[in-house]
């Protein structure tokens, strides 16, 4: 595989990873904007705007956008997170150019009023769908509780009210601020010809506005460390999310952080698996590392019979405490690495996954990493780096959110951040 990059005069970056043996080609626009870049009055606009991009341009109405994607058999969609809005499509190689053309076109939407009002209804339906799903809702609450006044606590969906109140002009204003060329990366991956792609892409985007899109309030946070119980009588299980600080996306400790999450809470063979799931105390338990611009966090979650909640909280705290005081074993680290390596290889075989990986790595690190380079980086992580992670981040500074039928729940005592023994291995 070969990597290419090009900086256009309007500030747009175009990158591509060519994999000649791939069966498909993928293309995506990565816009560096999300809920953290919204003002309070605009809450939910990034995600709403993502929907509006499929509602048409000067050239196409909404139905035509869908028809043109379907006509080339594209697998296409978009997603919005706290920091990114991504539009992507994968097709057979012969349709890669067409997919690029449609995507580039919808990146300059008309935002027609009638479409805006119609799509508002769909967004409100989407919010309603998530509100009926406590396993999802608890994460939104947990993030808000942890990040507090930090913009990363902003909800991606917004609220029904904030969506009802949103005006088309506010969306247009947001679009003009955020969707400028320098804030966007065009990414391609798979079986395509770079020169042809570049020529086409440059032509399609040449009129895009030059300018700067700022991101404010880039800072770390160690979280509120609060505890909140949300009673929801209509549910049967208790859903719990515990968040503690971790390294930001640009930190060299991000690899150690991913391995740490795996050792603590991977769905097989992890500490939480053995202490909570194997014993049947929780239906599921998980730890995952989320990295952002300037901040990072570990999300540890479990779902269980409400009666077990207090005991399970104690177990999670004990497991983290032990990882800090007794450290990670060589064997555990090797085991986590072999899992990561296998997952990297398998994900790397799918063009769509490569598009996400190559795109996100570029957006956060301004770097390209091939599958092999990514593997080598993980292979090199040692116990010393794991220890650095444990020393640098207060992993027991937990912000805890519990949602479910319980009306009362006592949060167990969290031991003071213990003194970390010096790293014995190198």
């Amino acid at each position, binding site marked *: 595989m070969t990597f290419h990059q090009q900086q256009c005069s309007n500030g747009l970056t175009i990158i591509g990873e060519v994999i000649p043996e791939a069966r498909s080609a993928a293309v995506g626009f990565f816009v560096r904007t999300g809920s953290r870049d919204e003002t309070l009055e605009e809450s939910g606009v990034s995600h709403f705007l993502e929907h509006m991009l499929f509602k048409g341009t000067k050239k196409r109405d909404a139905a035509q956008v869908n028809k043109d994607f*379907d006509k080339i058999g594209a697998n296409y969609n978009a997603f919005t997170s706290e920091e990114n809005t991504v539009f992507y499509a994968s097709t057979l190689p012969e349709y890669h150019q067409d997919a690029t053309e449609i995507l580039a076109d919808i990146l300059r939407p008309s935002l027609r009023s009638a479409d805006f009002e119609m799509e508002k209804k769909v967004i409100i339906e989407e919010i309603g769908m998530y509100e009926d799903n406590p396993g999802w809702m608890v994460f939104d609450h947990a993030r808000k509780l942890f990040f507090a006044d930090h913009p990363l606590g902003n909800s991606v969906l917004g609220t029904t009210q904030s969506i009802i109140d949103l005006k088309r002009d506010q969306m247009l204003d947001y679009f003009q601020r955020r969707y400028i060329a320098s804030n966007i990366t065009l990414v391609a991956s798979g079986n395509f010809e770079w020169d042809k792609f570049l020529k086409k892409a440059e032509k399609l985007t040449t009129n895009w506005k030059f300018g700067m899109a700022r991101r404010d309030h880039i800072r770390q946070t160690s979280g509120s460390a609060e505890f909140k119980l949300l009673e929801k009588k*209509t549910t049967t299980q208790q859903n719990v999310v515990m968040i503690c600080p971790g390294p930001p996306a640009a930190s060299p400790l991000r690899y150690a952080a991913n391995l740490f999450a795996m050792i603590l809470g991977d769905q097989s063979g992890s500490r939480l698996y053995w202490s909570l799931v194997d014993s049947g105390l929780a*239906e599921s338990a998980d730890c995952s590392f989320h990295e952002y611009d300037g901040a990072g966090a570990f999300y540890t979650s479990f779902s269980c019979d409400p009666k077990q909640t207090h005991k399970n909280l104690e177990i999670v705290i004990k497991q983290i405490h032990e990882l800090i005081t007794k450290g990670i074993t060589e064997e555990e680290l090797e085991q986590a690495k*072999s899992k990561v390596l296998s997952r990297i290889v398998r994900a790397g075989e799918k063009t769509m996954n490569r598009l996400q990986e190559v795109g996100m790595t570029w957006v956060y690190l301004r770097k390209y990493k091939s599958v092999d380079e990514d593997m080598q980086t993980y292979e090199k992580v040692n116990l010393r780096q794991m220890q650095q992670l444990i020393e640098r981040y207060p992993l027991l500074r937990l912000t805890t959110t519990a949602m479910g039928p319980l009306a009362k729940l006592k949060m167990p005592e969290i031991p003071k951040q213990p003194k970390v023994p010096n790293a014995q291995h190198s």
Partner: protein
Amino acid sequence: MAKQVFHHTFENGLTLLAENMPHVRSATVNIIVPAGCAYDPANMPGTSSVLSEIILRGAGKNNSKELSLAMDGIGLDRSCSAGTNHIRLWGATLSRNLPKTIDLFADIILKPHLPKSDIESVKMLAAQEIMSIEDDPKQKVMLALRKNHFPSPLGNDRRGTLEGLKAITHDALTKFWKKNFRPSGTIISVAGNIEWEPLKAQVEKLFGKWKGSDVPALKLSPGKGGKSHISKDTQQVQIGIAYPSVTYGHKDFYAAIGAVNVLSGGMSSRLFTEVREKRGLCYSVWASYQNFKEVAAVICYAGTTTDMAQETLDVTLKQIANLTKGIKEEEVKRLKIGLKSSMLIQEESSSARAGSIAVDWYYLGRVRPLEEIQKAIDSITTKSILSHVKEYNPKEFTIVTLGNKQLKYGK
């Protein structure tokens, strides 16, 4: 691009399938054993599902922890789960770890410890899984729809019931394993960067002496069908609709898939356009084809706020009925490219291929070459879809709704 799919049926009835994918570095192993929830003892629904959890807790010379370590040590992502007809053991890793994977999987299938000490914790897990359906309204409505629409025991939920779980003992589990784990009807399918001869020799050595009788036929009794409502205080009303279709391998199969794609393939399909894009009635609406050997159905779903629910149901049913009024050329063109793309892009995934070749074998007793599928897709026309939907025009729908308002089921 013609590629080879290897096949061997051993004397004991076990089938081994393999597809070599020289362009990948991974390998996936997929084993289906005819011990799904359709074979659960009548008073113990959930047996197969509980077995699929406890079966990973130690096998051969490894206890539970050692087995888990051995699999993690080779970066083996795996799962074992119960379906309607089969228990499926699945694992994906780097292809160099394939022989070790087969060794470990053979232990799990043939020499599981099924430790008595774990029975309570496994049942606790299973009970929580049943309880958590209550917190997922979409899943709840779709499970009820399956149950009402498909003949029993095909429509049963693999999770079983809380009463069923209570009745399950260690003895019953062991008995179920002994009775239903058999070479006949078991399919081992492997895809990835692999070598056939050594694979075949290894499987022969490990599974060659495995014995068992033939898979017994299931006694089916019809589902109750009809319309029902589950009352629940939720933001949205969940709607599930089912009607019969033709089975895999039927001469109309591709016309039926075509019809489902006219309804729900891509965002320009009829349901997405009419229900969501033109009317803004919901976020999620779709139709899909679901099948067993004996029966098949089209299953539709929509989730929408209470005030919009009646209109959503009406519009969805109307779109299904409208299929018989005509199919457009551009619709067929679009769905054919969609089907062709997914077929070819599947070649990137050893996991998808291992699953696909097993499905073909289970339903058809052979693996269809790519060219054959391609030809079948090419043969879809407006006419073939239209004559199919006319012949199989649903006279009656099974409908289940969930939410705080009951809907009217009009014509």
